[in-house]
């Protein structure tokens, strides 16, 4: 999805059901008549609003075409078996069977799941913290906000490069933890191999992703925070509420729409993550990295596409279950 906060907030509005209201035409017509009448109406409308149609058409066609192409191709590709870079069989589910039985796929899936599980709530917390900190007026607020947005601005490859440098053998982190700087105590007495141990390497990718994407959740949560009327806080103050009580009784409940958007959108992102694990933990692939491996290194686009399709399915399932979970929690909170 790329790192586009406004887009994500817009999707957030759709998820809240505010945009997705398809107006229904008045009834009273028979089914058949309605079909015929619709086409005629459509043609008349098109002629009347020529300008509208022609301006909308190119963009719409371009996107929809690719939408269809992507979906179609992926499906077709996934049903094609490759061997040695050549098409061997078309219209076979061999790829899927192979994947389901493959240990590699299952561990990649597990890794990705854990990745999502940790990264999503973490991003929510850091974003919330940043949004709360920024929500006052103070001198230099613009600059601080700009700095908070920087992780988003830097190309992801660059961020991963920096993390590589910091955490590689002989880098800052290992030296820091060994106490080689006199302003920090030594915690361990050997060089921690961040990049070669699985949990550490994956943890590093999680760190990088959270660092990079915090600005997005910050922006969404900040918009939510600013929509809360200040009067409510003052009224609560006159009634004796402390800052902490304010947060739990007023801020948090009113932020729930923004929070659920952040959770849903960021979890989708986390499932798709590619760059961080690719560079920092290539030997412990997540699903995204696995796709690259099959496509570029093994010349097996069929399997790659199959992984892709399964990833999409997992994302949809994951999103639906997350939505359900959030709705359940929301009704629970309202009762209290």
């Amino acid at each position, binding site marked *: 999805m790329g790192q586009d906060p406004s887009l994500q907030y817009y999707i957030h509005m759709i998820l809240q059901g505010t945009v997705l209201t398809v107006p229904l035409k008045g009834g009273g017509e028979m089914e058949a008549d309605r079909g015929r009448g619709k086409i005629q109406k459509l043609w008349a409308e098109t002629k009347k609003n020529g300008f509208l149609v022609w301006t909308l058409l190119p963009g719409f066609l371009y996107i929809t075409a690719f939408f269809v192409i992507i979906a179609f191709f992926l499906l077709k590709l996934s049903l094609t078996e490759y061997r040695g870079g050549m098409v061997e069989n078309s219209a076979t589910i061999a790829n899927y069977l192979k994947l389901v039985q493959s240990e590699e796929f299952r561990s990649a899936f597990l890794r990705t799941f854990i990745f999502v599980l940790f990264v999503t709530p973490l991003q929510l917390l850091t974003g919330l913290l940043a949004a709360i900190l920024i929500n006052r007026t103070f001198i230099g607020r613009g600059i601080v906000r700009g700095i908070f947005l920087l992780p988003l601005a830097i190309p992801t490859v660059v961020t991963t*490069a920096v993390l590589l440098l910091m955490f590689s053998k002989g880098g800052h982190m290992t030296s820091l933890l060994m106490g080689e700087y006199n302003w920090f105590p030594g915690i361990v007495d050997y060089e921690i191999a961040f990049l070669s141990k699985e949990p550490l390497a994956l943890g590093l990718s999680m760190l990088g992703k959270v660092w990079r994407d915090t600005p997005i959740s910050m922006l969404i949560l900040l918009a939510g925070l600013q929509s809360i009327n200040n009067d409510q806080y003052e009224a609560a103050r006159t009634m004796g509420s402390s800052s902490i009580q304010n947060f739990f009784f007023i801020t948090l409940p009113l932020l729930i729409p923004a929070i659920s958007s952040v959770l849903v959108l960021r979890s989708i992102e986390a499932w798709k993550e590619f760059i961080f694990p690719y560079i920092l933990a290539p030997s412990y692939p997540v699903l995204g990295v696995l796709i690259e491996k099959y496509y570029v290194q093994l010349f097996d686009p069929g399997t790659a596409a199959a992984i892709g399709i399964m990833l999409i399915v997992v994302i949809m399932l994951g999103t639906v279950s997350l939505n359900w979970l959030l709705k359940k929690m929301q009704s629970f909170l309202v009762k209290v």
Partner: protein
Amino acid sequence: MSRKWNLEKMIWLLLIIVSLIAAILPIYIMFKYSVSDRSSWITGGKYPVPWWPFKPTFDMYRYYLSDTRFWSSGILSLNIALLTVAISMVVGAPAAYSLARYKFNGKAVLLFLILSVRLFPDISSVIPVATVFNMDFLYNLPLTLKVALAHSLLGLPYVIFIAQGVFETIPVDLEEQARIMGASRLYAFTRIILPVALPGLAAGAIYVFLLSWNEFVFSYFITATSSVNVLPLPVYLKSLLGSFSPNPVTIATLSLLVSMPVIAFTLFIQKYMIAGTTAGAVK
């Protein structure tokens, strides 16, 4: 009341400082490495890597700024980004205009469709896209165009969303006035609406530019499967990372050179980024 002010404010200040450090640290490290002299990063275990190089030097910058491969990568990325902006704006702005002005059935479905393209994982959708661009008649298109078209696919939903918001804030009265005075729809759009919408559209253009400049996945896949001599910057950077014992100074210098325009951009336009998000919120 003064007592409470102090405690709360102290905690706030502390947290702000910690967050600022966390945000800036990686960038600082990058900068530090980029100006390090040899002894500052080759330590061989004798002493820890210093937080500030012993003899800071801008040699690496000089080297890369005179390296033709770097420049050709940079120029390629620049061209791709500019082309992407052009395509996205030319296709997207009019589309956004229609969406903003006209009500019709199924509009929400249309919007959802446009946005849903971006719901697919990059890594999945890139395969068919790369395959499409590798098909016979498209294969021979210049690389810049291919990558720009791919980036436009990513950027269009953006542009349409932002531009729609911008057009919606322009009162319909302007066009109606123009139409009454005899202008055609097209004339009204190009001569009257566009100039007014320009600042907001500029924000969208900047977004797309950054998107294209930073884009790795799509660039990588499309160039990996076509034989090219010059790579877009992010891909070039990645190729260096793959080589044995990467030279941190190299990586850092390149990283900063790639990021510099972006950082400057961001600090400058951060106002618009907030405005862009809240434009959706007001809806």
